């Protein structure tokens, strides 16, 4: 257990987290806390601190992540966590499955070049190629619109015909019907 007398006050830790979140970054717990996760939870509860309720401790694939919900949504934090840990295939799959289930829509490959992913084309292409033959990602399918832009969708959550037509609508149809 860290020394409470020398540990930073929760408010200061909270500001670090908020600053990161404001800039689109999540923090790993171990970047700001020297002890275990359980110790952090205990310490936080022991702090007579108000006004830090926006600081969220989230677990993503066994890792403890901190973000401020004042400046970041959980959806973004989850995506950022995948990207931070360079768990690229998992990040892609989670995003694609989420979009296929939620909106529903296929996910343009171009999305993974944007924050919080910022995957290079080479890394992305390699990851996608590997996923297409990996049974863990057997539901992830790749399709292409008529303008050549690539999309991924999850066959668990989307009918392939629907995914194909939506990809075409997003890539081409919208611009033809502005």
């Amino acid at each position, binding site marked *: 257990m860290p020394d409470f007398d020398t540990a930073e006050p929760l408010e200061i830790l909270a500001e670090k987290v908020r600053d990161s979140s404001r800039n*689109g970054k999540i923090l790993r717990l171990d970047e700001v806390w020297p002890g275990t996760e359980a110790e952090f939870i205990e310490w936080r509860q022991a702090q007579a601190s108000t006004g830090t309720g926006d600081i969220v401790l989230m677990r993503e694939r066994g890792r403890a992540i901190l973000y401020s919900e004042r400046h970041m949504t959980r959806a973004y934090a989850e995506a950022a966590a995948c990207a931070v840990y360079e768990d690229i295939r998992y990040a892609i799959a989670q995003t694609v499955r989420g979009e296929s289930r939620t909106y529903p829509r296929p996910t343009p490959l171009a999305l993974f070049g944007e924050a919080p992913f910022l995957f290079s084309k080479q890394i992305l292409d390699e990851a996608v190629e590997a996923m297409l033959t990996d049974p863990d990602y057997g539901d992830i399918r790749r399709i292409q619109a008529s303008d050549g832009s690539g999309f991924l969708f999850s066959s668990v959550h989307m009918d392939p015909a*629907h995914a194909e037509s939506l990809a075409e609508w997003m890539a081409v149809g919208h611009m033809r019907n502005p």
Partner: protein
Amino acid sequence: MQSYGGWTGKTLRVNLSTGKISQEDTARYKEYLGGTGVGYRVLWDEVPAKTRSFDEANKIVMGGGPLTGTSAPCGGRTSITTIFPCVYPTELVGTGHMGGHWGAELKYAGWDNVIVEGKSDKPVYIAISDDRVEIRDASHLWRNGIYRATASICQEMGPETQVAAIGQAGENLVRMSVVMNAFSHSAGGVGSVFGSKKLKAVAVRGSGSIKIAANAQEWKKLRRYVLSLMGGNNQHVVPSTPQPWSEFSAPRSRWTARKGLFWGAANPVIETGECRPEELNRIGFRTMKATYDLGPEAEKHTVRMGGCASCPIRCHSQIDVPSVEAKYGVSRYAASTCVGWNGRMYFKSFPDGPAGTTSIEAAVVGKHMADDYGVWTCYSQLQRDFRWAYENGFIKANLPAEEYKSIDWSKCEAGDPGFLKELYRRIALREGEFGIAFGEGPGYLAARWQFPQSYFNSEATHYWKMGHPGHHANEDAGQAGVLINLIYNRDAQCHSHSNFVRNGLPTSIQKQLAEKLWGSGAVDDVQNFTRMNPDKAKFAVWALLRKELHDSLTLCNWMYPMVASPLKSRNYEGDNGIEAQLYSLVTGDRKDAAELDLVAERIFNLHRALTIRDMGTAEMRTVHDVIPDRIFDLPENKQPFTPGTNKMDREDMETAKDLFYQALGWDRKTGAPTRATLERLGLKDVAEKLAGMGLLPV
């Protein structure tokens, strides 16, 4: 009108035949608000049935409404209502709508509307400086493009003057022509009516202000509330890329601002950045429209965004493309939005690809040619018709051999933007068969060149009916989109429904919002439509009534209604009563949303009555409200109501019409308003007239 805010109380009437200039009390039009409402009423009362667009008896009704120029957010539009030249085969009532600053300036000058009647025997323009109104000689402006005419009039009247002008296209009675103000804000399809009256422009300078009923605090509070609900362009309420503050994103959202996206030709460059919903002073950065419309290459050319009076959205991209000056002899500076950039669509390809420099050059050259000559492209129908006719041999087949040889087709093949200078000149000046035919508009062109059924059935042409294309039809909103595209005599220009279905929120949330407004059955997953139901009829009716309301108040139908918002704290709900709140505070005439929708319904029914009267039939269902076969037949390998298609079903659309007419109180068999409905809406005189003509359903 003196007891109400918003309106000035004065309507200007200018008779170009007699030279008489008079003013009337706007009070007689109060129950029609302004804009299209006043336009339809004037046409009903004063323009005889079956008047043609270029007849002296046709009138032009221009103006905004009680909200125009009051600083109501996005309250800067002007409606121009007349007998619309492009309607095929019978010219019927239609409206061109323009943004910019003209409508607000008219209000500052003390006028609600301008009614132009008669016909001058020589070129003139109407000069309005507050109370001083003159019909001035325009012979020195005639045969000038819109740019020079605007500049010249500003030299004569002052640099603050707002000029609504036509170019050579309008002068030469090209049906496909516009009226334009502020160099990039056009009212489509109405230019040649101006030209038929030898009216070059209506120019206005106003030094006054507009009284509103609310006190300053109330007004500021409401404006702030409206801004808090605002999304990006087209009321898209999520950003186009994942951003920390937002739960959702949508790749085709027009909320395109993000870190690393710049107005790259500004000095210094300006980053659009992350624009959070609560940052109301950054609304104008949300929509980086240049890259949305023109691709990533446009970023380095973007100086800033511009737009209309009282609008924080700023959807007009102002770009600088230096290369066009030396290469094509047009200004390097260009402002436009959306289809205004579609000069690119005339070309099959460009030497440097679809989104390279040449494509942007074509966009700029096309914009300058169209906007200066004053040619209307009708939601890019002109471009689609050109490509179809060219690729299918109809241009070669219909042009005299000498004329065909005189056009440098190698430029078209090579993707050379210089081709557009020739194309637009020919159309604007009605040069040869090419110029005449393409300037007539889709319906007349198709008849003139005897296009086969494949033209009408082609998704590539996007033809709908009566000389106009489909505009946010089944591809956006299934049956509701189709119904919306049945009603008008030009393309629908309705965005109430498409803004909602494209707002970027998941369908599940859209359904929750829809449930409160029309019923959760109103919206489907796009490209996975279900059968017709009463909720969809309500959705279609709501969309149309709100569009009519916006064109009469005026508010921008690309932003309102705001029934969705970017605020998670409100579960993404907007406010369906926003228009009524704005109207009530500005005018002092307290109405809730339902009461204001009733006014819209009155205006909407008057449009229908005008259409019936001037078509000489009440058989709207079978004669007017026709649906192109392609939406039932294409794609061939798909079945309606299966995932992955927007193909519709004929029987289902008949059900749709039944439910739609029922929701409107129209006769199911004919699609015509009943006497009961017209009387309910305060249109008893209209009912009597139609009954007398045998045009009221039994």
